[in-house]
């Protein structure tokens, strides 16, 4: 079983060598552990130049998806190192964003660039770093700079992936608060009769006007910077 010279001797020199290469290739492939040249040479009683054959095989596999490498005292096939991260089968698990996550995302989308403290100011509750981590994982937000205020806090903004996912061409495509109101996504305040009138009358509550103006300015600033 181990001896193979009976068949190899009667073939021509070239195919003899090719046959020896095939055998080494098969041996190294099938072996559970790396094989050294001596172990391989045991299969070639007629004294083939095993190191030269291995070297040839090593060359042939150079640059392929599988390489012949020398590890732990022997030769073995290994998938090419540069492909390692592509081998893992990715199993996609759909996951929903938490309430805090979607609100934070919305604030970042509307107010970017916005610091964490500002997000907390708008939400009225602290933003856990876990929430930002999850949003980072989605690839929808990213740090976009620093606010030039004491402590130079990081500012957050949305990414192209965000636009892609939500089917927006541009961050300015997000509907304004008044449009949200018009579509019923923001409920009417019980005392908003005057506010509605504020669109046409100069009696608008000063605070509301100021806030809206600021939001719009910020949105414009961002898009300018992008």
């Amino acid at each position, binding site marked *: 079983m181990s001896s193979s010279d009976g068949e190899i001797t009667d073939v021509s020199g070239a195919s003899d060598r090719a046959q020896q290469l095939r055998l080494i290739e*098969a041996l190294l*492939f*099938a*072996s*559970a*552990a790396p094989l050294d040249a001596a172990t391989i040479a045991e299969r070639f009683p007629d004294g083939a130049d095993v190191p030269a054959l291995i070297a040839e095989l090593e060359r042939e596999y150079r640059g392929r998806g599988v390489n012949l490498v020398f590890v732990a005292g022997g030769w*073995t*096939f*290994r*998938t090419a190192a540069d492909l390692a991260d592509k*081998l*893992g*089968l*990715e*199993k*996609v*698990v*759909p*996951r*929903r*964003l938490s*309430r805090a996550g*979607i*609100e934070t*995302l*919305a*604030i970042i*989308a*509307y107010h970017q660039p916005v610091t964490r403290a500002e997000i907390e100011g*708008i*939400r*009225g509750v602290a933003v856990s770093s876990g929430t930002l981590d*999850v949003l980072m*994982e*989605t690839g*929808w937000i990213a740090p976009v700079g620093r606010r030039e205020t004491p402590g130079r806090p990081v500012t957050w903004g949305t990414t192209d992936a965000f636009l892609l*996912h*939500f*089917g*927006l061409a541009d961050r300015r495509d*997000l*509907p304004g*608060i008044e449009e*949200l*109101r018009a579509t019923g*996504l*923001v*409920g009417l*305040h019980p*005392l908003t*009769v*005057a506010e509605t009138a504020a669109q*046409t*009358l*100069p*009696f608008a*509550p000063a*605070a509301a006007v100021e806030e809206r103006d600021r939001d719009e300015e910020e949105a414009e600033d961002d898009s300018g910077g992008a």
Partner: protein
Amino acid sequence: MINAMAFEDRERGGAPEGDQLVVDLDGYEGPLDVLLTLAREQKVDLTKISILALADQYLAFIATARRLQLEVAADYLVMAAWLAYLKSRLLLPEPPGPDQPTGDELAAMLTHQLRRLEAMRGVAARLMALPRLDRDVFGRGAPEGLPRRLVPRYEATLLELLRAYGELRQRKENAVLRIVPPELYSMEEALERLQRMVGRVPEWRSLISFLPPILGRGLIERSAIAATFAASLEMARAGKLELRQDRSFGPVFVRSKPGVI
């Protein structure tokens, strides 16, 4: 009943011959196996085999076995009896009656059985001759394996995003107590507005034209008219305006007091 050695022998050297058959009854896998072996001895295609001759051979085989006082299992005897019956059906005229298969049909069935068994043996041999994993061919000795990575894919729709933002804003608005300003145009506002215009009105102009641009809203408009009229009286009293009304209920005209500019 199973005799692997006998099988191996026959696989290598073909069917055992004559006497060997008789004495080695245990080497057979049942009566059909015996029949097939006997049939092979006719050395013709199984479809052309003489069932009559086969039946005779089988009966002779069993008779020999019994003469040699070999223990013959019941199923071999049942087959012998059935073959004797088949023989009679083949030799005698067919009795009338559609329910019974004819002798030829029975023979054809037997032929089919033999052919199928032979076919199965043929493919069994071919199957076992295939290169076998870990005996003839080998897979990779040390496969790295493909790790499965769980990749979360977050899902959120634009609607959810907008609704979340809308609710957030609403929540914020609800949290702030806002005093709704009165809807009436106040005397103070009218006074302020008129005072800004004083000195720029050399010609008589309708008081109405000094009203702020109010659309609809009858109550507010009327309050504006009243407030503006009261303010004009106040300013006339202070000597800054002149008022004129040509007739009762007619329009009120106003102009800056000459010299006030």
